[in-house]
């Protein structure tokens, strides 16, 4: 597109990408860790969408889940704890052409990264944000996160966490200009894939909370949900996350929910008796900051020189 060498390039032969084109280093998560499932879902999505690996960027913070980029064979940015979103927004600001996935954890996003979470959701720049919520700080070995359940014994609250967990869905739904809020579970590959796929096609920031098993530290939290699918509430709607029969057979506890209804989405998010999965809210027409930030891309050097000279003239003595 840009640059010189393109001119010398041979006729480009059609490229076809296979799963292995997205497979980076061998994933070093614990056996049974939910992160593995999300990784394969994203790799499959990339393959199914035939995303050129060099046009795909995966951004993350720090945490077990934030190792994600290392296991993809695309461009990756494994940055600072809590700061995936500002970096992702910066990339997106001038790169409408790349595909972008963000991997963040419940500590990364909901604790140290809270400010960026709120504001990136408001900016609504196109990207898929996957919140790997294992209710714990995994990488640093078992400290309470904002989503840890009250009474759970972690290393920083060995006598039990003091407060009820922060609900990332409620918070996100409270943010003005939020445009896509969904929840899924790592252990249902079909629903997981369908949710990420829907987020990928969303024109804006798709916020997906993934209930993610951490057998190492929070097995006691996720095993019951996995064992008893009636704890899950499957949200259904023609404009929601498509759920096929396999999914519907497992999740008998279902509710029709119109994702354009924010207030009822808030009510669903606040329900303490079940884990809703599916699309809580979507607004395809929300304002998008990346449409503003990308204005003027592609101005030539000569045009810029002329513009700078015009501006300097305003300062002439």
């Amino acid at each position, binding site marked *: *597109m840009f640059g010189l060498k393109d001119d010398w390039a041979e006729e480009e032969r059609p490229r076809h990408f296979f799963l292995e084109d997205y497979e980076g280093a061998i994933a070093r998560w614990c056996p049974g860790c939910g992160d593995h499932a999300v990784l394969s879902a994203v790799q499959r999505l990339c393959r199914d969408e035939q995303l050129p690996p060099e046009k795909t960027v995966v951004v993350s913070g720090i945490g077990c889940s934030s190792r994600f980029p290392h296991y993809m*064979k695309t461009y990756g940015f494994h940055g600072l704890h809590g700061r995936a979103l*500002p970096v992702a927004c910066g990339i997106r600001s001038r790169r409408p052409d790349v595909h972008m996935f963000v991997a963040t954890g419940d500590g990364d996003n909901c604790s140290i990264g809270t400010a960026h979470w709120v504001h990136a959701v408001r900016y609504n720049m196109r990207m898929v944000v996957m919140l790997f919520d294992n209710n714990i700080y995994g990488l640093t070995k078992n400290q309470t996160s904002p989503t840890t359940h009250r009474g759970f014994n972690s290393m920083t609250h060995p006598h039990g966490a003091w407060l009820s967990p922060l609900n990332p869905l409620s918070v996100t739904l409270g943010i003005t200009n939020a445009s896509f809020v969904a929840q899924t579970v790592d252990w249902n590959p079909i629903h997981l894939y369908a949710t990420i796929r829907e987020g990928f096609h969303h024109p804006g920031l798709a916020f997906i909370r993934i209930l993610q098993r951490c057998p190492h530290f929070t097995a006691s939290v996720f095993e019951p949900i996995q064992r008893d699918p009636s704890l899950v509430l499957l949200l259904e709607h023609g404009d929601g996350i498509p759920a096929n029969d396999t999914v519907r057979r497992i999740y008998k506890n279902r509710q029709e929910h119109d994702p354009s209804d924010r207030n009822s989405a808030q009510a669903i998010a606040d329900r303490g008796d079940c884990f809703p999965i599916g699309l809580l809210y979507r607004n395809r027409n929300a304002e998008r900051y990346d449409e503003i930030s990308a204005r003027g891309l592609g*101005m030539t050097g*000569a045009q810029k020189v002329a513009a700078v000279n015009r501006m300097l003239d305003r300062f*002439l003595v």
Partner: protein
Amino acid sequence: MEALWTEAEETPAGTEADAPHVQRLMQHVVEIVSDSGEGAQTAGQMFGTLSAKMGNGVWTVEIIPAEIEPPARSRAGASGIRIRLGHGDVSNAGDTADVVVGFNEQVLYSRIDQGAFRPGTLIFLDNKWASDPQAEIQEAYATALADFRQRGYVVREIPIDAECLKHVSDARKGKNMWVVGFLCALYSRDLELPKKEIARRFGKKGAKIVESNYRLLESGFGWAQTNLDYHFDVPPQPETHEKVVMNGNQAIAMGCMAAGMEVCAMYPITPATSASHFLAGTMQEIGGFLHQAEDEIAAIGFAIGASYAGKTAVTITSGPGFALKTEFLGLAVMAEIPLVVVVVQRGGPSTGLPTKVEQGDLLASMFASPGDAPKIILAPATIEECFHFMVTARKLAETFRGPVIVLSDANLATGVQPFPKPEVTESWMAPPIDQSPWDTTTKPYDWDPQTGLSARPIPGQRGGNYVLTGLAHDEDSKVAYESATNQRTMAARSRKLAALQRTLKPARVVGDPEGDLLAVTWGSTLGAIDEAVMRLRREGEKVSYVHLRFLSPLEPGLKEIFQRFRKVMTVEINYGDDPQDPTLRCDAPRFAQLAWMLRAQTLCDLTSWSRVPGGPLQPGQIEEALRQQLTALKG
């Protein structure tokens, strides 16, 4: 080496005394001081601009009150401007004021607190307060007047308000133009240029406004012609070059655009904000945009994201904001992400003196990120350099693949000075994002063993795919835990500074290359040190100076230079313990910031004259400090 300041002994050629009452001057410092909202700054800028147009050297600097709308006639509320005019170039705001126009007497006190006046300063003071309906005001006025005279100021009461009221109903809106007319007469200029300026500035507001301003201008001019028994003249030198005039923050903003940077991510903070204000209004003209982030951390993160994606970005801040950026700055060093960070220094520590100048962030720039984080640090010394260093900074950031810090300060930020119009070329501009295929035999960190340099793949480049990380990593950007890799990669990043140093010219001595005393400075003090040193040299003193623009790496050759002087001292606007202080009694005094660095680097016994007055150092103060050192050397 050539000095900046040339003060001839005699009256400039061709200007022999033609009228007995005209006093010809090489330079003069004028202040206009008023309540906030009375337009003193507009008046001063106009007077400065037209002086520059005539060919005078000019330096103007705004006097900004601490509150947004300070109450009228408050001591802390002074709003105004200082204009220094010169026969030749003017490189700094000068010493104490020669002439002051005061809109009321109270606001002058904050200038007195700043040491802006001296015995002999000529104060023109609006006399309206002498007959104010409120007795306390009359009294306050009388008391102050007596006090001023007691302090040795020459006070002349003038009827600004009364004269304005002859032409407009609200004198608060007109006094400033009257004063421009007054100053034109005082400085022996005619009204042709000021009228043009008025037409240019107020033309859009309609003929009536222009007319009314003309009348005020003429009124002030006429009153001064009639009533003043002396005039000054600072003869201009006709200009050959096209010049632009702007303040340091505007110059930084213009420089960003001249460097072709398309993204500035910032969070507002005084005194850096005005640079981003300017960019906010103009950056779309070069196809770029300004991002106001939710905080400083997000601002640098956003800039890093844009840089990683191929558009080297800039983030502009001041001390407290810089503190928040240091974690990301460490990432930029570790993962080698080009990035320009401008720090417009203000008084610290902590919130400190938000609108005032200090050179207090040098060591923080060097060392703030934990671990070893080598980075390039530049400090522009003039408004012109504020512009050009941005172009250099982007290039350095990309060539040396890492962050470049540009240390400006509140003195440069608000100082206004004409300089030759830059000849912008396309080679200054960042090239478009490279999207050609990456040579897959080249690793993402293919460090050159001599220089530590390496080329970086940009997302979109086929075959360049890599995962950037802040963890210790090898040439492939793979996480690496072994001892040897850690030692080797640290060295690769560090040697980039050595490689850059090898390309730098040796530091330049201004004055003789050897002598009694050498002053070493950096940043915005250049004009003042130059003037101070030149005055002393004219007296025959063996004093020279070195002014550093590269702080990291340091310019080469310093030790050799220092060894040729009996005494070396830095002059800085920051805090250092006074080792002479008898109550200190401690064998580890805390040094001024550049002194710290130079002592460690050269092992020469540098001392400092460093002060934190919340304002620029005046050349006269520096002269005095140097003179004391010289005396001590002799004694």
